[in-house]
């Protein structure tokens, strides 16, 4: 009886870890702030106000949440199959490219269908692109971690080439922008007079879709099994290769949709800096949310608030927004440390029982 109780307590301790880590990171940054001569309480106040204090602030936070949530989901979903997709940044750009091509074509001028086609193109482009590392992993055993990271740079340069050349808007001379997509294929604003677009609904649907896929469907069971124990999955007759392909396709597809949402909802055209490094923060978010769709949503919201709050902090107090990056990094470091401690404790009890 006592053993059970202890187990439960440890598990709940584990779920507290991300929150504790966040708290510690804020404390450390407060020390840095006060060393720089800024009152940390005031700075955090400004940050909080920036993220939630006004309709604009909230809308901005939610717009950022949308992208971070989708990308975090992309990373988390791949990790359910023990595949590291660190290439969501690249897949986002490829997805955005696909969506832009649809948005500026004749299909983009059809209402509703234009938006759906853009999202579909984002999914297909991003998903197909993510099959490259999957194929290399399955065929030649090349680590997907390396391939996905490096492909990010390939994509960024490829997009830059397109925007300076073939895809460049013929009406501008200087800016490396694509033409603007048809207004029919732009996501509607759901909160008037702000930037908040319907993408947040797409993100919410994506959470539900991923949850259903993983826990209710056949392919989800296979994917989870391969991720949990590849040896047992193979032994039980599951198709490991198929699982890796499917999960990479879905993961890349979700990243591609993120790109499509950014084009359709925020920029309305393709630019080089359409993502300010969301793909890299996404990895932190997936870790922080423990690869659980709902955990990812909370983590994404937290980071979005952090980002939009620190922008305001920079404008109001002149505190460089690199401090926000410091904060993000510290959160990650504390989470990793916290994970180790949480695991250590469980491991200890199990070990003692084994020796018996």
């Amino acid at each position, binding site marked *: *009886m*006592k*053993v*059970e109780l202890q*187990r439960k307590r440890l598990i709940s301790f584990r779920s507290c870890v991300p929150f504790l880590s966040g708290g510690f990171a804020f404390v450390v940054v407060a020390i840095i702030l006060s060393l720089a001569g800024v009152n940390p309480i005031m700075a955090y106040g400004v940050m909080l106000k920036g993220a939630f204090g006004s309709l604009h602030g909230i809308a901005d936070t939610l717009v950022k949440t949308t992208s971070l949530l989708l990308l975090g989901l992309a990373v988390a979903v791949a990790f359910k199959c023990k595949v590291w997709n660190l290439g969501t940044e690249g897949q986002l750009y490829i997805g955005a490219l696909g969506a832009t091509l649809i948005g500026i074509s004749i299909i983009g001028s059809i209402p509703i269908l234009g938006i759906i086609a853009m999202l579909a193109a984002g999914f297909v482009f991003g998903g197909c692109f993510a099959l490259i590392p999957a194929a290399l992993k399955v065929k030649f055993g090349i680590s997907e971690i390396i391939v996905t990271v490096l492909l990010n740079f390939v994509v960024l340069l490829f997009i830059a080439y397109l925007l300076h050349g073939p895809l460049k808007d013929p009406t501008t001379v200087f800016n490396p922008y694509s033409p603007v997509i048809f207004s029919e294929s732009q996501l509607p604003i759901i909160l008037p007079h702000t930037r908040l677009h319907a993408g947040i609904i797409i993100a919410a649907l994506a959470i539900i879709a991923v949850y259903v896929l993983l826990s*209710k*469907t*056949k392919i989800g*069971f*296979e994917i989870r*099994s391969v991720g*949990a*124990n590849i*040896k*047992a*999955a*193979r*032994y*039980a*007759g*599951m*198709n490991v290769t198929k699982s890796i392909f499917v999960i990479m396709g879905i993961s890349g597809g979700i990243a591609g949709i993120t790109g499509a949402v950014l084009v359709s909802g925020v920029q309305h055209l393709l630019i080089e800096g359409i993502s300010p490094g969301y793909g890299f923060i996404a990895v932190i978010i997936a870790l922080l949310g423990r690869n659980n769709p709902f955990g990812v949503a909370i983590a994404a919201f937290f980071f979005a608030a952090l980002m939009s709050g620190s922008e305001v902090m920079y404008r109001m107090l002149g505190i460089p927004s690199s401090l926000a990056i410091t904060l993000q990094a510290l959160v990650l470091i504390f989470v990793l440390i916290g994970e180790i401690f949480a695991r250590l404790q469980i491991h200890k*009890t199990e070990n*003692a*029982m084994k*020796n*018996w």
Partner: protein
Amino acid sequence: MTIKDISKTFFAKLAKFQKNTKTSVRDPDSLNVNVRNYAKNKDNGPIVFMKGITCRFGNLIANQNITFDLKKGEIHALLGENGAGKTTLTSLLYGLYQPESGEIYVKGQHAVIRSPSDAINLGIAMVHQHFLLTLAHSVTENIIVGLKSTKGIFLNLDKAEEKILQISKKYGLKIDPKSTVGNLSVGEQQRVEIIKGLYRDVDILILDEPTGMLTPMEEKALFEALRSMVNQGLSIIFITHKLREVMEVSNRITVLRGGNVVGIVKTSETSEDELARMMVGRTVSVNQISQGSISKTTPPTVLEIKNVSALGNSNVLFLKDIRLDLRKGEILGIAGVDGNGQNELAEVIAGLRKVKYGEISMDGRSIANLSPRQIRELGLSYVPEDCLHTGLILEYSIIENLVLDRWYTKPYSNKLFLNKTEMMKFADKIIADFEIKIIELNAPVSSMSGGNLQKIVLGRELSRDSKVLIVHNPTRGLDIGATEYIHKQLIKQKENGVGVLLLSLDLDEILTVSDRIGVIYEGKIIKIVEKQNTDIDQIGLLMGGKAIKT
């Protein structure tokens, strides 16, 4: 069922058992008298005396008020199932743990043993189940490592070799001090471990499950050496859970169960049946499984392996020219020392390892290099060696684990979605059929005991409508009760017409249940014989790679 309930039933059983076996159980307190006598009379007293030892790990009591004595010049067996507290008790004596309460006397002196080096100074050495040797070094180097005399700049290997040869001769432990440990057989490595202790002039040896990895020949040689040691004044504590060994080699036996001493008996005054009853707490049949009648006509072959070769893990040809045919309704036992290709053979049949050359057919259909799922669908069940990590997904619930092989079929799922209700129904049935004890249906199985985990895999594999069943070390680490249960299940499968291929390191198990016995050695099946035409010695020789001229 909570832990409290389990312990309640356990203690109830224990009380009942103690009533039944009053003759063999002695009240541990009566041994207290010995302490007084002991202090007065040091020469005749035990060389090791452990009194009222209690040791806990967290909430688990590994040893409870245990009293144990070792006389000079005896082999004292510590008998008990896994988790009975044998290894804990000896680890306390060897200084690996500290007891919570209780006292230890060694050679008449009260001893506090804080570390293995304390133990060695007191003349106690322990040979672990897994050897602590460096494979790249010579026997001599392995033996003298860590000794004070070696702490100068130069080693005096010649002198050490001389002493090793002396010990080797004295006790009949044949060894070449110059050879590299990596080239030695398991039996020889064990001798090195024993000599390592003797080299440090100990007179008390603790052997933890020393026969686990030996061939019968090596086992015989070990027992002879042990007898010669005790004849020359050494004392030995012999930890085991195998009844046959205890009867063969020990002088006295202390039986442990659930961390308690349930009996101290003289080997000459007991029997395997009595010991089994003490170990388990109820009557079990030892080696008495019915054989069934052997029909005159040869039944049809269900699995035929023709000249199969396959690569091992290091990409060299490991299975060589395997020829084997498994008949309907028989158990074919494959004996062999660990690592001679048993795992590779099972994997090749199950489609988990590529067939390089040769042909495998099941029920007349070629299955070589089909996918694991295709082979399963054609009628294979497979209980793998590493049940915990290959046969199960530990973070999954029992329901998910039970459908691990059939989740994609009707009625467990439709085209797209899983059907949890049907899965649950199936799980309930298997749990009832196989008497699996569960705490919570949806909890990860990692919290369940080894025996129950084995039953999950068994339940899943045996509930398939299969033609061939491969079982690999199905009872390793299980207690007598669970072992008996699994053997009965195998016999039941055989009687239902399934061809059972039993790969096992436990020769007793193979001799108990199989109809025919094959021996695998260095990736080859070197012989297959009818069970009645063979005996343990012949199989033992074959396991060591020696073909017998007949």
